[in-house]
């Protein structure tokens, strides 16, 4: 993935998984790369139209002209899910909104874990943790907490250098397979609150790296999310340690637990290629 797209790498993974599934089922796929390209497309003969909460709309939050009359073929990729679209012009069955993880309102699409980027051997763990977040904005307001943890345990980050600290290594951007390798040889992935629900927490557990999951003081997205990754916390509680956000001592108890754990790699069955492809087949009636 391009490092400049770090902030939407989750969406890219969702889309690329869907493209792979469509290719497998023999569905011919055309991806529009600009507004102009999309606006010129004729939807006659198109069976499935995949949009997101922004790309469907023309000015005034009304459906783009070439979508009118084809509403029954439209599906929306919405990472977190929602009850409805913005505006009043396009009423859609919420079940046709497809989410990255589970949502009470919508259908679960998800993605699949690409086996090719998973380490082929179980690597020896180093006594280190990883800071989750490639963008500096994820660390704002967390600097003190990070420093205090780094005083006790080596930390690495895939962001560019931010805080000067002898015990923090700023690696910068890593490609997908190096990212998985880094997780595989680390004891824990330290969530700091953002990004919400990113696939990285699942990546961590998939290679036996404990995810330290902050519980929000103020739940996110209209109180829908009480912690950074409730999906993986509910699914594999032994591989996740939740701590109240900004509570250093609770966090250090989680760090201690991670350092003394020997976790087996675990992948949610619903994120395996087979189950994902089955889900795609069901959703789109392929």
């Amino acid at each position, binding site marked *: 993935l391009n490092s*400049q797209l770090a*902030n*939407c790498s*989750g*969406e*890219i993974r969702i*889309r690329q998984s*869907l493209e792979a599934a*469509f290719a*497998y*089922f*023999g*569905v*011919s796929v055309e*991806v529009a*790369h600009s*507004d*102009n390209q*999309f*606006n010129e497309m004729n*939807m006659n003969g*198109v*069976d*499935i139209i*995949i*949009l*997101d909460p*922004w*790309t469907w*709309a023309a*000015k005034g*939050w009304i459906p783009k002209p070439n979508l009118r009359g084809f509403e029954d073929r439209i599906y929306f990729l919405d*990472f977190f899910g929602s009850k409805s679209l913005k505006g009043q012009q396009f009423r859609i069955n919420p079940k046709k909104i497809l989410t990255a993880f589970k949502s009470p309102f919508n259908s679960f699409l998800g993605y699949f874990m690409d*086996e090719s980027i998973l380490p*082929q*051997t*179980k690597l*020896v*763990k180093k006594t280190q943790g990883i800071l989750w977040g490639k963008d500096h904005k994820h660390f704002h307001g967390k600097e003190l907490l990070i420093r205090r943890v780094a005083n006790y345990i080596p930390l690495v980050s895939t962001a560019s250098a931010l805080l000067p600290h002898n015990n923090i290594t700023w690696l910068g951007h890593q490609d997908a397979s190096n990212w998985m390798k880094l997780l595989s040889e680390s004891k824990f992935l330290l969530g700091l609150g*953002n*990004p*919400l629900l990113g696939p990285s927490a699942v990546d961590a557990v*998939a290679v036996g790296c404990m995810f330290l999951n902050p519980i929000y003081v103020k739940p996110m*997205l209209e109180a829908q999310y009480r912690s950074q990754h409730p999906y993986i916390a*509910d699914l594999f*509680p*032994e591989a996740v340690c939740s701590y109240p956000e900004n509570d250093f001592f609770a966090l250090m108890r989680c760090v201690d637990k991670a350092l003394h754990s020997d976790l*087996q*790699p*675990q992948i*949610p*069955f*619903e994120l*395996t290629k*087979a*189950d994902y492809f*089955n889900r795609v*087949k*069901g959703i789109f009636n*392929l």
Partner: protein
Amino acid sequence: MKKLPALSLLLVFAVVAVLFVHFHSLVHLTDTHNQTSKLVRSPPPKIADIVNRYAELNHTLTVLHQRLNWITSKQQNALTLEVGSLATVQPITTAPTQPTHSRDSAITTSAVTNPHSHLSIVPLPPVSTKKLRAVIFTMDSIATYEANSLVGGASGRSNPIVLDFSLL
């Protein structure tokens, strides 16, 4: 006269049997006595021993608790499998149990090569015979190739540059 050897033999056998039972009970009593004596003679357990025993028990309970959690998570995934209507496929959600490895050892042996090899066991669904067409147009599909195309885009977004997926 012919009965005499037979009776004698029977008598000898009976005597041996009685002696055997008697001797056995004596041995048993002696053992019991010894054990009792040991119990009586052994000093009361030290506090350190009790603490050690408690620690062992606590550790055992912790391990059991961890295994219970692991089993619970497996069951959760087994449920997912049922929902996924893959009844013929084994619910493989976790890596098969592998030997514990020393933290000092180098990359592990071939016995644990590819901890994710179990994933490929699950068969993919049958390929569709339908000939369908799909169009995908999402923010990240724009961002992948033409990040600048969003500036002043005609889609009516409140913010023309919507690359800030700030929560992701």
